[in-house]
């Protein structure tokens, strides 16, 4: 029973990682930029979720507002920070991204204070006994459920709509896509909007599980998401999802059975190193 619970906890954590890392993969796939500041959008999403919930009492509204606003901010980040740097070597955009991320932590602290924010009436605090002695918290159910729904919608969009097809075409071969009349600029905006909105959803969910959002909450997400996209094979969406789940589950069991030897983060990176030794292109990356 414990193993099953730990597995499920791993899936909960993995779902959150997946939502965060997906945006990173999307940006890398399209622009070859390591978008470290993505974690700042995760934090922004979490803050918006808590603030709107506290103001209106509606978690649904808060999630929607948080995703839309964060998505738009993500588009602005592209327009103001990355677009001017597109012709430059990729490390310049990386430096800009790291700078934005560091600045964001202090901006959150200055605006919202150093203590962080919590839900005044934490929603979904409770649990459900699925069967004898096997429990799942409401918040955790929502994490898994919402992740499945959002990823399914995304999968459907990319496979079955004109929008999705043009997006995939742009990722595969931007110049060819342009030749076929696809507006690359719009695809890039869409890319940042979706990736940032997913990070915001992850932020709202994390805030729900922890009942705490803090200026520095993006720091773990920033490097963990990088590890996940490398593990999955840079730019591979399917690889990112598999890697996110793998890291979530390894951390879950590792915290309990290996925690006295290696910390949670160290375990994730040890696994990353092991995989890269055998498969340098990542789990599902192309050679």
């Amino acid at each position, binding site marked *: 029973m*414990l193993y099953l619970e730990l597995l499920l*906890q791993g899936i909960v954590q993995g779902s959150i990682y997946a939502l965060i890392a997906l945006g990173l993969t999307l940006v890398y796939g399209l622009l070859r930029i390591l978008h470290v500041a993505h974690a700042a959008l995760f934090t922004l999403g979490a803050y918006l979720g808590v603030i709107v919930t506290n103001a209106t009492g509606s978690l649904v509204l808060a999630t929607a507002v948080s995703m839309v606003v964060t998505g738009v901010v993500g588009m602005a980040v592209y327009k103001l920070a990355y677009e001017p740097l597109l012709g430059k070597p990729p490390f310049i955009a990386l430096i800009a991204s790291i700078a934005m991320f560091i600045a964001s932590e202090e901006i959150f602290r200055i605006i919202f204070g*150093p203590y962080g924010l919590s839900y005044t009436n934490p929603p979904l605090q409770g649990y459900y006994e699925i069967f004898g002695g096997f429990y799942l918290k409401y918040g955790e159910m929502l994490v898994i459920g919402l992740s499945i729904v959002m990823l399914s919608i995304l999968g459907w969009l990319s496979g079955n709509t004109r929008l999705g097809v043009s997006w995939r075409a742009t990722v595969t071969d931007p110049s060819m896509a342009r030749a076929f009349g696809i507006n690359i600029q719009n695809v890039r905006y869409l890319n940042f909007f979706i990736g940032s909105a997913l990070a915001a959803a992850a932020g709202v969910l994390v805030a729900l599980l*922890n009942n705490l959002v803090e200026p520095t909450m993006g720091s773990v997400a920033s490097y963990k998401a990088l590890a996940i996209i490398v593990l999955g094979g840079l730019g591979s969406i399917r690889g990112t999802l598999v890697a996110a789940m793998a890291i979530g589950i390894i951390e879950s069991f590792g*915290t*309990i059975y290996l925690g006295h030897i290696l910390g949670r983060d160290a375990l994730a990176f040890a696994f990353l190193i092991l995989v890269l030794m055998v498969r340098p292109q990542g789990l599902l990356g192309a050679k």
Partner: protein
Amino acid sequence: MTLKSKLLGAAISVGLMAAPAFAENVKIGFNVPLTGFAAADGESALNGAQLAVEQVNAAGGINGDMLELVVYDDQASPKEAVPIAQKLIEKDGVVAAVSGSYSGSTRAAAGIFQEAGVPYISAYAIHPDITRAGNYVFRTSFVGEVQGRAGAKLAGENLGLKRAVILTIKNDFGQSLAAGFKEAAAKFGVEVIGEYEYSIKDRQFGPIVSKIRSDNPDVIYATGYFFTAGPLVSQLRAAGITTTVIGQEGYDSQHYIEIAGPAAEGTIITTSLDRDSSAAETQDFIKTFEAKTGHKSDMVAASGHTAIKVLAAAMKVAGTTDKAAIRDAIAATNLVASTGTISFNALGEVQKSVQVQIVKDGNWHHFAVIDDAALLAPPTE
């Protein structure tokens, strides 16, 4: 240099000299994290320290001279704390200093103050090596082991809860608390049936919550800070685990109760500040702190306040800015402060009672006092 700038320089020096003519300022240093991960505690510590300075100055200062707090942000980082200590000593010429910061930075700064012969008091950093820097370094809070031992007594004797799971935050704070708890556990009939570690960055404890449910302990001794303990306890309670949680001074903040909400009810901690104390000094601190800042006082604020009060009292006794005389006066302290009656042992470690507080109706309240001097004896070397 032109004549004009010479004149300007002269005017400024006259201006600077004019002000202190009737009130000489005595500078004391204060390193505190105001940005970075520990900024929340830093702000509280600074508020407590500033309140103490205001109170000392309102009561006539140090024999007529006003105290001036020279504050630097050390980000709770040793590499920031070292140049700050040097700047305080050489550039600002402080007569003494207080750390309102965590162990890493305090430990790094302690050696520098010791070498320069400048008295230095750690307000709430708990690493045992801090006072080992030398005879100019003091601490007005408990070392981790002492508080850990008090936690074991609280679990085994006061509460009669014998099967414990320990949750250790992986830094000097958590490890020294856990060591103290384990050291004294057997003495109070407490058996440790599980032990798990987490990092200061962790906020999601799903796997640990599942494991604790399967361990089914009588009590959870969970080391941490309000920002880790708040999420931990709310996740435990949301999963239906009602086991008693024993925390420490890291929980001691109204923010813990805000984060954990109703789940915080019944949490018991070992700390330095008794909200229901009958001591006038403590009650006065709690009231004036709330009036000054608009939010509730906590252990960190009270500790910053206590450290400054101890230093100010010693400076009054010494009656001079001679650092050796101030050091001797600190060593001989016997002062009723907001965190209890303060005196030091030969190593500069505080000797005071441990306050046990419980969350009731959304506030911290008195639960017990542990004043077993033998159990709470701090290290002497």
